[in-house]
């Protein structure tokens, strides 16, 4: 029997790009393998996955050299639709790919196209609903599902066609930690119980490395390196905290899960027990406050009588499940929406009453999709536009951008930038007005570890200079590395609000990997551990 997926000397180049997206890739995925594709943003992960199902080049254009063979069928002679029974592809944003309007119909859609007999369809729909634990959703309109549910329905919808191979592009990037866990454990179950072959691209390595058999690491030049995770991550520049801790301490074998690491860390815990717990930035003066704020949309209460004060010189993270009211909170502070009851004050004024120019001088919000903030067709005109909006000296925004991202090409269209570059451009546009309050909604979505580090450094400087920074995020590792205060929302209420270290260390869902390994010590990151080791000598 042929392998589910084989790349033979595959190179992909897009028109107008100076370097290939993939270069001489040879890859053989065996039956029943669980493969992780990792690499920096823009390193060609999506291209690799889309080439596997034929969307590259049939749908996206570009030039593909070499051959991609899916279950014995060459994508050069088979269009994506001719591969639908062999490979199931789930894209980054499942909500945008739904065809039907009810869960059950969505599950049947691929089978209908394949002309599968009604009784077989019926059986497979039932089996798949059970396999992914979504039987209770069968009659629900797709638009009413939460992010995690949508992702599982999207997976179920391609599984019903009984493909030999499942390909997923960042299935958890938009999900809160618990929903992400649900989706990944569904995948692990498919691998173990049904021997499904799965190829998945993922940025948040900490969620997945311990589940996979093999890692395909892509570099900027489009070349790959492949091997078992413990081998690849020994030398890779990226890796989840557990791996970086293992590398820093020279543990062998390299731990991949918190469990492995915790068992090797008994000595470390006793050595570090005497080390002092690092301290956070101190809170400055009050910059903004919410008093008894309630906000509803449709019939849903997003925030219910919330009291929060934001202080200067600190970074706060707003965390909580999808739909807990995080974005609503930021949009209220930014004056983009109006509270139903209660009062919002930013810099002593109600942000809804401020004129445009007054508003952007007091508060700046980078939304979840930073592209929404950008209008111009070139990076430099975008910067000039931002200068004019705020009545700033010409070149101010460009200067801010140079500090954030020195190598951003000025003549590029913002749509052609990578996700991370676009975020930094939007951030520059916001920061140019020097607002004392900076808000970011899910800033690390789609960012690779290096881009994340650059962003964290920029935000750290901002807080050190006295600005108040608030981020809504699902990314516990980012929160661990960066923030001073954590506010947890659930169902529109503030559940926890306190010092980041104590909140993160004592939450079963929000604790970062290092805290789990070293509990009860209150250390959050590999850098914390290094500093503590240095201190105890």
């Amino acid at each position: 029997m042929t392998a589910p997926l084989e790349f033979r000397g595959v190179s992909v180049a897009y028109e107008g790009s100076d370097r290939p997206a993939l270069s001489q890739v040879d890859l053989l995925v065996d039956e029943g393998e669980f493969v992780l594709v990792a690499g920096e943003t823009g390193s060609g992960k999506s291209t690799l996955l889309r080439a596997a199902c034929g969307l590259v080049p049939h749908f996206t254009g570009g030039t593909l050299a070499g051959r991609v063979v899916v279950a014995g069928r060459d994508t050069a002679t088979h269009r994506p639709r001719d591969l639908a029974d062999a490979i199931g592809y789930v894209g980054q944003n499942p909500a945008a790919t739904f065809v039907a309007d009810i869960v059950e119909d969505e599950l049947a859609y691929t089978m209908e196209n394949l002309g599968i007999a009604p009784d077989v369809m019926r059986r497979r729909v039932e089996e798949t609903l059970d396999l992914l634990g979504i039987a209770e959703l069968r009659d629900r309109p797709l638009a009413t599902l939460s992010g995690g549910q949508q992702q599982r329905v999207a997976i179920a919808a391609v599984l019903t066609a009984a493909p030999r191979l499942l390909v997923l592009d960042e299935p958890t990037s938009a999900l809160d930690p618990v929903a992400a866990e649900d989706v990944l454990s569904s995948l692990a179950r498919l691998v173990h119980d049904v021997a499904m072959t799965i190829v998945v691209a993922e940025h948040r390595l900490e969620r997945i490395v311990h589940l996979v058999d093999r890692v395909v690491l892509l570099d900027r030049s489009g070349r790959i390196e492949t091997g078992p995770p413990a081998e690849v991550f020994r030398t890779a520049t990226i890796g989840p905290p557990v791996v970086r801790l293992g590398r820093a301490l020279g543990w062998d074998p390299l731990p991949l899960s918190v469990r492995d690491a915790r068992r090797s860390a008994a000595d470390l815990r006793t050595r570090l027990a005497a080390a002092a717990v690092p301290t956070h930035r101190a809170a400055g003066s009050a910059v903004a406050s919410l008093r008894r704020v309630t906000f509803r949309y449709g019939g849903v209460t997003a925030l219910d009588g919330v009291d929060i004060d934001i202080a200067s010189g600190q970074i706060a993270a707003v965390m909580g499940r999808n739909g807990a009211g995080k974005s609503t909170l930021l949009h209220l502070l930014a004056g983009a929406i109006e509270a139903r009851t209660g009062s919002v004050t930013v810099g002593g004024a109600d942000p809804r009453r401020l004129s445009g120019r007054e508003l952007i001088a007091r508060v700046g919000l980078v939304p979840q999709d930073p592209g929404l903030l950008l209008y111009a067709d070139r990076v430099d005109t975008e910067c000039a536009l931002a200068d004019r909006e705020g009545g700033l000296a010409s070149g101010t925004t460009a200067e801010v951008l140079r500090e954030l991202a020195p190598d951003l090409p000025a003549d590029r269209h913002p749509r052609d930038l990578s996700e991370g570059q676009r975020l930094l451009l939007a951030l520059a546009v916001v920061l140019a007005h020097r607002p004392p309050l900076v808000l970011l909604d899910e800033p690390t979505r789609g960012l690779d570890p290096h881009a994340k580090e650059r962003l964290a450094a920029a935000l750290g400087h901002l807080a050190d200079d006295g600005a108040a920074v608030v981020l809504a995020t699902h990314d516990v590792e980012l929160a661990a590395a960066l923030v001073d205060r954590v506010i947890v929302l659930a169902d529109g209420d503030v559940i926890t609000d306190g010092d980041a270290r104590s909140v993160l260390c004592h939450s079963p869902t929000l604790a970062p990997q290092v805290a789990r390994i070293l509990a009860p010590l209150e250390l959050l990151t590999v850098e914390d551990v290094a500093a503590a080791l240095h201190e105890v000598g």
Partner: protein
Amino acid sequence: MSPPPTTGRTRSVHALAWWGWAVAIAFVALSSTNLVALAATAAAIALVLATCAVDSPTARAATVFLRFGLGIVAIRVALGVLLGSKPGGHVLVRLPSATLPGWAAGISVGGPVSVEVLVDALAQGAQLGVALVALGAVNALCSPYRLLRLVPAPLYELGVAATVAVSSAPNAVVALDRIRTARRLRGRPTRGPRALRHLALPMLEGALDRSVELAASMDVRGFGRTDTDESRRRRTHAAMALGIVAASIAVYGAAVPGPPRWIALVATAASAVSFATALRAGSTHTRRSRYRPERWDRRASVIALGAAAAIVGTVATAAWAPLATAPPVRPLGVPAVPWGWLVTLLGLYLPAVVASPVAVEADVAART
């Protein structure tokens, strides 16, 4: 045995029944200027929506249609007041009047506004308004996706284009909200003509992006798989093209008085044969199956019969009592609706009786 689910597929009525109901309402509304009858059909929409609507994104489109319908009534009334003044009648108010110069067809603007003119404009606006709202309401009762599934295989591509178009409208509304918020974040105005120009482009861009993404998703999920018999596919397309040409000739022949009658008849027959051939060939070369096809049940029959009764009643009334379907505006008064017609219009209320969740639960309880 587990109890039947209380929502979704098990209780949904055949999509064609719903569309038949909506078309019947549109037909009644468009063929009568009787305000009492129009009010009766509007009430039917309101009652059925209140009892049978399902919650879905397309259901929210119904409110858009409702606003659109009200807007049309308002525009028609305003035009009637401005341009439609006639002397006589019960004058309410006298607007200053002016006659446009000859090159503007000498239309007179303003003048006395009488109750009669208002009633006339209201009736004509309501005709279009009610018809539109009926088409919006059907979106709330059964999603357009279900109608698409009933489209015969060769027309499937057309149906898909229609679905993508229909689904992109609510998405555009959502996108517009996000774009407006983002403009506020950059401190720019969110209303006014200049804002509109800057809103429209990103909105279209977003809608286009989504359509492309949807198309990619449909492709990887096997949409449009056909057998590889190229010649048969070409024959289907040729037959379709021929049918369209013949149909155009038929319409032209029927509409224009010049050419002899038989040309239209022959062209009609030719187009019917071509379409039938295309459909037949098409359904054999597209291998598609149906998961739980729509089922025509007793409720669907009742709704369809009610709709048919309303259409027949309206046609009959128009033939035998034209004063009832098109009542004269003068003298003023409540227009009469013959009993026979009123009874047939009640057919449009039947969905509320047979298809509401309450009725279905009672039915299920009675059978078990």
